[in-house]
């Protein structure tokens, strides 16, 4: 369902001004995407709590039923948390730059939010299948760093400033290996459209493996890992969580935020996870393609496969977070510039040769 479909559908029923129709359709899509983000956050936060609890020999949020005990198995915990966050007092520090302080969380949120507009959840489920889809996502998802820097600067807190500086350096560094490994995918698919990339991954390779980009050739196999590591770094999660390193920077760039504004940081962190993992799935794991070619395909199966792959990659991110310590800022830069970037460049070259000779 792209926005164009919605417009056409409306036009056949209400022949009114095209502009009005366009705005209505965009709003509908926006609400749906927001709902996806919110549900993702609800589920992912619960999953993160439970998974971390099981990894740490705990039980996590538990309850005896609806009511004050956060529901059966703590299922209502995130909802209770959300209500708490909404009801909390909105504190703006006296010394803060008020305008920037207020706007910063929304800018971070916006980055993840508009990136989802080009995310294909199924063969027909995409808000807008642009011909530059992957390029668009890369561009707008780096938008968030502006929000982080604004938040850090406007808080007028030294820890926040540290967090902002680290975050800017980190995200800018990791964009490069991430983009380079995506470019190597583009060499294979020769299209920038998200649906196009997925469609090009249909079929099998060597007869039994699905023809996903990760299995296409050894270089793209490596590119998957580079992209995923860089993606974890872009979402500011452990082992790359230095911008909000709790034991060092208290809470980094969102030290001074509370209540709903803080919730927006939280929401966009999980939104960013969704974008990064979604992009991984689309570019390397065949998007909504079924793992066994020709079996269980179709619109709803597509949605199912996409969400399954998405969940698996998000699980890996959560797994990382609860097993690894944190890197230091210079080691982080070393990983980006001295390890990932050369390998990514080499990979790009390798994929190019491969496509020339084999593909």
């Amino acid at each position: 369902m792209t926005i164009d479909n919605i417009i056409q559908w409306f036009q056949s029923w209400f022949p009114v001004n095209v502009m009005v129709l366009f705005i209505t359709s965009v709003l509908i899509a926006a609400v749906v995407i927001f709902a996806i983000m919110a549900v993702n956050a609800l589920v992912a936060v619960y999953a993160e709590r439970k998974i971390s609890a099981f990894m740490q020999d705990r039980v996590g949020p538990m309850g005896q039923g609806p009511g004050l005990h956060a529901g059966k198995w703590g299922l209502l915990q995130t909802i209770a948390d959300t209500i708490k966050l909404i009801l909390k007092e909105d504190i703006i520090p006296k010394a803060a730059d008020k305008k920037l302080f207020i706007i910063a969380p929304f800018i971070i949120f916006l980055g993840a939010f508009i990136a989802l507009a080009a995310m294909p959840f199924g063969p027909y489920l995409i808000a807008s299948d642009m011909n530059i889809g992957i390029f668009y996502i890369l561009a707008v998802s780096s938008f968030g760093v502006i929000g982080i820097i604004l938040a850090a600067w406007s808080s007028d807190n030294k820890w926040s400033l540290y967090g902002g500086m680290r975050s800017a350096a980190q995200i800018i560094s990791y964009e490069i290996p991430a983009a380079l490994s995506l470019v190597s995918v583009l060499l294979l698919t020769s299209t920038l459209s998200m649906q196009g990339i997925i469609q090009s991954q249909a079929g099998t390779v060597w007869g039994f493996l699905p023809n996903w980009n990760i299995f296409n050739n050894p270089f793209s196999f490596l590119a998957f890992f580079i992209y995923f590591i860089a993606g974890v770094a872009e979402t500011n999660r452990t082992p790359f969580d230095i911008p909000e390193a709790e034991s060092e920077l208290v809470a980094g760039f969102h030290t001074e935020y509370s209540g709903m504004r803080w919730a927006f940081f939280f929401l966009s962190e999980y939104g960013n996870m969704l974008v990064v993992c979604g992009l991984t799935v689309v570019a390397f794991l065949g998007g909504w393609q079924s793992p066994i070619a020709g079996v269980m395909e179709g619109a709803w199966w597509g949605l199912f496969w996409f969400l399954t792959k998405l969940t698996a990659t998000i699980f890996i991110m959560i797994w990382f977070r609860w097993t690894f310590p944190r890197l230091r800022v210079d080691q982080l830069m070393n990983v980006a510039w001295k390890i990932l970037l050369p390998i990514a460049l080499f990979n790009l070259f390798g994929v190019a040769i491969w496509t020339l000779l084999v593909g």
Partner: protein
Amino acid sequence: MGLVHAEEMTLNIGPQHPSTHGVLRLKVKTDGEIISEITPVIGYLHRCFEKHCENLSYEQVIPFTDRCDYIAAMNNSFGYVLAVEKLMDIQVPERVEYIRVIMAEYNRIASHLLALGTFGLDVGAYTPFLYMFRDRERILDLFEITCGARLLYNYMWVGGVSHDLPLGFMEASYRFLDEFEKNINEYHNILSYNKIFIERSADVGIMPKDVAIDYGVTGPNLRGSGVKWDLRKDEPYSIYNRFKFDVPVGTGIMGSVGDCWDRYWVRAEEMQESIKIIRQALDKIPREGNVHEALPKKVRPPKGSIYFRTESPRGDLGYYIISDGTPTPLRVKMRSPAFTALSALSEIATGWMLSDVLVILGSLDIVLGEIDR
């Protein structure tokens, strides 16, 4: 090209900060991420321990010693009661000696578990912390069945201990030790040999041998720098000369001698040694005996003074006690090992990055209750 003028920023780490292990304030000058000057400011937890002691009788001081190093309360009161006993020339029954050693070593394990766990937290690893707390919890359970308290025990008395070992303590102990020994490997797998953890702690915050000795740093921090000095071995007090155990020292396996990883490793190895000691003590302990047998009617040491050192989990814990023949001490001074360890911080942590400073601080394993007293 004009010159770029960079200003140094003064940053207050603490008193309210997640990884200062209490209410410690570090006034640091930073040049970007690099720390160029560190001034620790302490005293936020000062509770006038030494002034209190001058107004209380000898027995009443024991709960205060518990509260100084609340992570290793058994060891702290152990040192105090040994000092008073030496001053009064009291011989305690065999069974009491063994019980005290068992308790002190259990508390050493509990304290090291907390030290390693929070060190992991400082590096950013959450999960090992909870694994270690799982085992620490079981030691606290053992303490609880023995004396009813889980953190501050008031267990060691002058001339005895407050309660005899309860029924089932021995079985529970053996069971715990068997399982705990296996768990140590789990910690090594998740934390000690983790590549990122090694990167963060090896070759960081190196404390050379001579610096450590010059500052009077003792305990695992000194042994991490490669000095084989353990009061339990070199100046055996109580009945430590009856047990066979090794003194692990830092050898710089992952980096250089005296780095954070070595200090971490020494603590991990010491837990193994403590297990050995507890095992031997459990095997040899006299099955019968009255733990209140040697309790003096009145704790009134003769005139004199004593400086008595014991090996607490943090290092040489010294008590300087001066008695003037009255039921209240004239002076009780506590030589706190964490105090001297912290005084070396600015020497070994200057020039490192902000993240490293907190890792180095974590590796020193300070307890602010003991520093500020």
